[in-house]
């Protein structure tokens, strides 16, 4: 079975308190970039996409070879089917999860539950993010003890909160900006 890494990444927006004030948008972008490059050939990346990040990921795929498109599993909830970005069409593996009762929260919960119960998940990387990121961390911690949890504190947002609350003994290594070295060690 191909090993998979779950990517929980979003860029906190103004009005979202501490998530926004600590978030470092450049480092969020760079961390995802370095993850995509480091995971190539070693892991398939499972994620839900993001309007500011998906186009960049698609571009990296284009530059580093079409096989990159096979290296992603993109989850989308049918609740948002009117808003799917055009870039989604370029990914070969798109998993659509059902809309539940016309409810945003329930539909997202279903998507999350399906994404995080994939058998092949080996690691989970948390970049920036807000409440959803923390929920995903908690679900994995409770239900998937074999999945290695890796918040990148330097990116700020929820990832930084998770480093402080869950990885305080080793905070400096989780707060590095040397993402190239970090992922190399994780995937070796």
């Amino acid at each position, binding site marked *: 079975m191909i090993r998979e890494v779950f990517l929980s990444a979003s*860029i906190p*927006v*103004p009005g979202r308190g501490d998530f926004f004030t600590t978030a470092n*948008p*450049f*480092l*969020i*972008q*760079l961390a995802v*970039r*370095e993850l995509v*490059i480091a995971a190539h050939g070693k892991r398939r990346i499972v994620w839900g996409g993001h*309007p*500011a*990040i*998906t*186009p*960049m*990921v*698609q*571009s*990296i795929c284009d*530059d*580093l070879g079409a096989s990159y498109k096979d290296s992603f599993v993109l989850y989308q909830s049918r609740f948002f089917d009117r808003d799917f*970005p*055009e*870039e989604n069409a370029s990914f070969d593996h798109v998993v659509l999860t059902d809309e539940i009762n016309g409810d945003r929260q329930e539909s997202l919960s279903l998507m999350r539950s399906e994404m995080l119960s994939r058998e092949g998940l080996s690691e989970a990387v948390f970049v920036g993010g807000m409440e959803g990121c923390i929920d995903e961390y908690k679900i994995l911690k409770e239900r998937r003890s074999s999945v290695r949890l890796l918040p990148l504190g*330097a990116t700020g947002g929820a990832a930084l909160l998770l480093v402080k609350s869950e990885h305080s003994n080793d905070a400096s290594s989780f707060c*590095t*900006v*040397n*993402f*190239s*070295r970090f992922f*190399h060690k994780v995937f070796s």
Partner: protein
Amino acid sequence: MEAFYRVCFWGRIDDSVFEAISSDLISRLSDCRYELGREVGLERLLGELRDFDEKVPIVVVAFFSGEENLDIDFPESVSILPVVSRLEEVSRVVPERYRHINCLSLEHGIERLTSTIMESLGLLPRQRRVFLSYKRDESRSVALQIYYDLCGRNFEVFLDTHGVSLASDFQETLWERLCESDVLIMLDSPNYFDSRWTSAEYGRALSKGISVLRVSWPGMGGSSKTANAISVYLQDSDLSPAGEISDDKLQEVSRKLEFVRSQSHAVRHINVQGDIVNAVERIGGKYIGVGPHNIIGISLPDGRCITILPVVGVPSARTLHWTRLNCGVGAALLYDSVGLSEGTQSHLMWLGEEIKSVRFVERHRLGWELGDWQ
């Protein structure tokens, strides 16, 4: 305020030499309208390096005279400039592990040393490239204000003026200018973004690792498409009837730019250095360190030493020539192909085949190439 850049002196330095270097740095930094001790921190290290922040460009100028404690250790990503009074002293006073990094000598003059310090921090004009993008009929006045202000601070600014017609494809030469910049400044006026960028082109710019500073026009607020940018927000009161911004706001833009730019410089450097360490580990070689001109030294398993020069943007024949002169035969020019157009990539392959004395190596293939280095 916290400094954007950090210069550390280590080892025994005569007061007169320290004064001369400080004085020359002050003069050079005034070209950027910066002060030594404010935007650029200066410290004399008594022992270990404290408060190391990977996001702040740093250089350690290490003076060796034979009297030092030779056991000092610096983080492996830190640029070290070993300095001696005379080059003939190198084998006697410089510890073995620093001898593989080019040493500087005070015989060559203070100006050469301070120029190398500025270069290590990325403070030379050719290293401070900014791509300033705006919509002509909406923000021309502000664009020109920012342009002249940044030129006065030792930045090289490329103006990307977008007209009223529909977005045209990014021409190759324009794309190369963008790839050589470390910051994209966009004046996000009401009709700027969608008329200038397709989603794919903006994604491609981000894939290059460029950092983005966004000057957000009144009422524009946050944007999901440009969420990765650091923003300066304008209110209505910040724009004069003539469409210009106040000096205070201009100052805010330039300070944010320096923050964005210095962070980008440090973080990109550390990740390239990380790539090199990864590649060296893979083949069983040894990482030596970062020296003058940000040249990185490694040794192969068979003991051969190789110097690697990481390059931002598109490496040119001129860069190849400089590398040959300063790093010797067999050095490697390391570049990142992600975000470069197909035309540029095939040009680089052709250039690499024609010029054998310096090798072009694509960043993500370094381990592979080092494993079979001829």
